[in-house]
């Protein structure tokens, strides 16, 4: 989200789900939408079948939604900036960019031009780099740029790279160049992967910002929170999750408090994570289950499930929606906020929330975007932030007349190769992701046997590679990288490019993140899950 925040001034899906049907063209890049966001995929497919919308799919796997596409192409993983720069070159060379829009609403066009017009981004050259035929690149550029309204939808396929911020910025560049921001049906639309990842970010579950993206280190912000909370606060930006693991590994971080997360399976380079967790002097895990991470904990605190509590989730389109309690938690299980309040008070503090609604009121006071999203106003169908006041109707799409930062900022982004490329020893590119039937580290989805019956661990390889290595479908194979190895049945398909291997990361018995590269994006600190070098072997 860092790229988006820098270019547009706000890091969230700019448009809403209902607006999907307004788009003439939708580009899906780095999102296996039908698997990871099935209901949004349904809305996109509806738009296609209704005849108005055409879609372009760019993905190393021929994902299900490619069936609905006007154009489908596979890029070599990690070449997104090159591809998007190339599209922009074609657009500018043909004069298809939104000229008035650029003049009135953007800055940095000359700088962008200087980068993307470089000969190395010519379609012919990018064909060599990305594997996408030059003619297809030109066709995509034309279709996209000439659309009245075009949207880009992406997910972790764009962000989980050492160049993740660059990738996001490139997408934003493309959308600004074509004038697709600030209108219904357009936009830059990162699909958020977890039920309340948007809310966790909005609520300041980040080391550099307070709730509402108010910057740590900004004296006015610090003063605001110090006044509200009646305590001195640290002006120092904190550390990210990967840095926490590194810190624990190095002995600088002594205690970690984990609420409802499972870094054991979700973080890169699992062996490194294990050592770090072992070294942590005091680890507290608050969860519904003894997760793989909780095995390392000194104290585990049982927490309530979503159906057992009240509160709000904020979805990928910034819609704040109410959770209602449907069942009682098991005896002796408390909700997360109750537990946190207990700890705070046991440490000698003075907390006194009587209900969830008390917290909601405090959010309303301290988070400008949530100012009008009060307990009583949310209603059955929710409200979309920004919604600063109690009379504000909420905001279906952002940047309507101006960008959050004023002028939208175009920026030339240079293409950089991924951190780890295939070589003789590790000749394959490994990329990771999700399947429809499982979720994240499996803590929730794997408790339903039917889902496990439908989708177990697998290593997806191309039919051509399988032929070459003599691997049969469903045959157990070994996949290794410089960081470790896993074994799982091969899933042989023509839907993936030769030389590329795909592994879903849900399974503790075949954890993809034992293999992944912990190299991170320098700005957003996201690890490069989508590209690393790997070796595939027959076991027998």
């Amino acid at each position, binding site marked *: 989200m860092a790229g988006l925040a820098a270019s547009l001034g706000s890091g969230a899906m700019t448009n809403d789900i*209902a607006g999907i049907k307004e788009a003439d063209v939708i580009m899906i890049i780095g999102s296996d939408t*039908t698997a*990871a966001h099935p*209901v*949004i995929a349904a809305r996109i497919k*509806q738009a296609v079948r209704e005849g108005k919308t055409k879609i372009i799919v760019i993905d190393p796997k021929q994902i299900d939604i490619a069936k*609905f596409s006007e154009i489908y192409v596979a890029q070599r993983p990690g070449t997104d900036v090159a591809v998007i720069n190339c599209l922009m070159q074609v657009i500018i060379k043909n004069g298809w960019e939104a000229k008035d829009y650029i003049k009135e609403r953007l800055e940095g066009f000359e700088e962008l031009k200087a980068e993307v017009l470089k000969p190395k981004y010519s379609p012919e050259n990018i064909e060599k780099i990305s594997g996408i035929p030059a003619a297809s690149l030109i066709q995509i550029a034309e279709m996209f740029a000439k659309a009245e309204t075009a949207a880009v939808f992406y997910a972790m396929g764009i962000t989980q790279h050492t160049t993740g911020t660059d990738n996001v910025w490139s997408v934003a560049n493309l959308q600004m160049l074509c004038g697709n921001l600030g209108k219904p049906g357009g936009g830059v639309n990162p*699909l958020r992967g*977890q039920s309340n*990842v948007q809310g*966790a970010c909005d609520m*300041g*579950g*980040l080391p550099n910002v307070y709730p509402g993206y108010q910057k740590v280190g900004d004296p006015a912000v610090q003063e605001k929170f110090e006044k509200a909370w009646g305590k001195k606060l*640290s002006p*120092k930006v904190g*550390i*990210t*999750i990967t840095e926490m693991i590194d810190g624990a590994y190095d002995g*600088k971080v*002594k*205690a970690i*408090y*984990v*609420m*409802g*997360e499972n870094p054991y399976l*979700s973080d890169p380079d699992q062996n490194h994570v294990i050592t770090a967790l072992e070294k942590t002097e005091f680890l507290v895990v608050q969860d*519904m*289950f003894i997760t793989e991470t909780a095995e390392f904990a000194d*104290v585990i*605190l049982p927490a309530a499930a*979503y*159906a*057992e509590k*009240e*509160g709000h*989730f*904020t*979805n*990928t389109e910034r819609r704040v929606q109410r959770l*209602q*309690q449907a069942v009682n938690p*098991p005896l002796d299980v408390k909700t*997360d906020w109750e537990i*946190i*309040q207990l*700890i*705070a008070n*046991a440490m000698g503090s003075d907390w006194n929330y009587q209900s*969830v609604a008390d917290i*909601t009121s405090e959010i309303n006071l301290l988070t400008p975007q949530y100012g009008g999203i009060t307990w009583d106003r949310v209603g*059955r*169908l929710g409200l979309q932030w920004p919604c600063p006041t109690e009379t504000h109707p909420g905001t279906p799409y952002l940047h309507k007349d101006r960008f959050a930062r004023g002028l939208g900022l175009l920026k030339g982004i240079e293409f950089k190769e991924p951190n780890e490329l295939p070589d003789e020893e590790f000749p394959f590119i490994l990329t990771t992701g999700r399947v429809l*039937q499982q979720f994240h580290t499996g803590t929730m989805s794997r*408790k*339903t046997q*039917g*889902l496990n019956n*439908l989708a177990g661990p697998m290593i997806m390889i191309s039919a051509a590679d399988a032929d070459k290595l003599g691997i049969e479908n469903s045959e157990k194979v070994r996949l290794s990288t410089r960081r470790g190895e896993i074994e799982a049945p091969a899933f042989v398909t023509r839907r993936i490019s030769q030389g590329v291997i795909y592994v879903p990361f849900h399974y503790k018995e075949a954890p993809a993140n034992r293999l992944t590269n912990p190299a991170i994006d320098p700005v957003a600190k996201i690890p490069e899950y989508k590209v690393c070098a790997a070796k595939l072997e027959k076991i027998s």
Partner: protein
Amino acid sequence: MKIMINGKSYQASPSETVLQVALRNGIYIPHLCYHQRTGPAAKCRACVVQVEGMNGLQTSCNLSVRDNMKVITDSPAVKAAQKMVVDLALSTGKHDCLACEQNGDCELQDAAYYLGIEHPSYQVEIPDYPLDDSSEFIYVERDKCISCGRCVVGCNQNVVNEVINFAYRGFETKIVFDQDLPMGTSSCVQCGECVQLCPVGALIDKRARGKGRPWNLEKIETVCPYCGVGCKLELHVDTLKNEIIRIKGVEDSPTNEGMLCVKGRYGFDFVHSPERLTKPMIKENGQLREAEWDEAINLVASRFNEIIEKHGSDSVAGLASAKVTNEENFVFQKFMRREVGTNNVDHCARL
């Protein structure tokens, strides 16, 4: 505009159909194939009414209102026609309510109730349709199917998975998956849209069978705990047993319009999993043991205080969660920032 139904005047808007205006005003007209999310199909023909100035009977589900339209829904002739349509449907399927999962939530039953059909008047042999239990989460009982087509529209136009369609002809018409494959081996992804739309007990939630009558279940709306789309769920709960029996999508939600995926609809077992933690646990000599809350909380608080004292606030880090509420994340970061005194708070947004 206004229309008259059975002699009384009602407000209507031009985009409405006669059936919509009637239902909105509590005037029941039997209908089996109309659903707000699949639109009028005029297939079941049970919703016929009489309209002044029009020849014969009209299906009300696809009849747009006109100003001053005069509609009769309950004359003997109209009800006789409706009754015959519903009777024919009842006569040509295995509609035994006693153990049917849909009992109490069945639109065919509603129609029969309204029209006073106690037993079907005719009995014909129906094709031998074996129960299709090949899929993980859905039972297909074709002998209860009334070919209303809602599942077909739902699968093709709502979730656009394009798996279900009608095959064969006439009385042999049945819904099929792909080229008439068992549901479990077809390309169906078990999103359950068809189950949600089925007016009878032909497509049902396999695991909910026998677990609770609809009228005994409380319905509570909340938000799906899986991906970030934020689909609104309707949880059907046996409150006495404190158990979620089944989940449906909230039909008027702007995010999901009633649709769900296989995880959101069927992946709720974790809530009642025997593996759930029910007591705090403390590690002693490398082994976890159960503890009371006081002990666990005091231990956490004292250890945090010690470490902060000894190594400084920045030696403590916290992971908030993309899976808990805004309120919980808010107090978590407040805890880290205010009580611990560090900005070392993050979560797995990136992972």
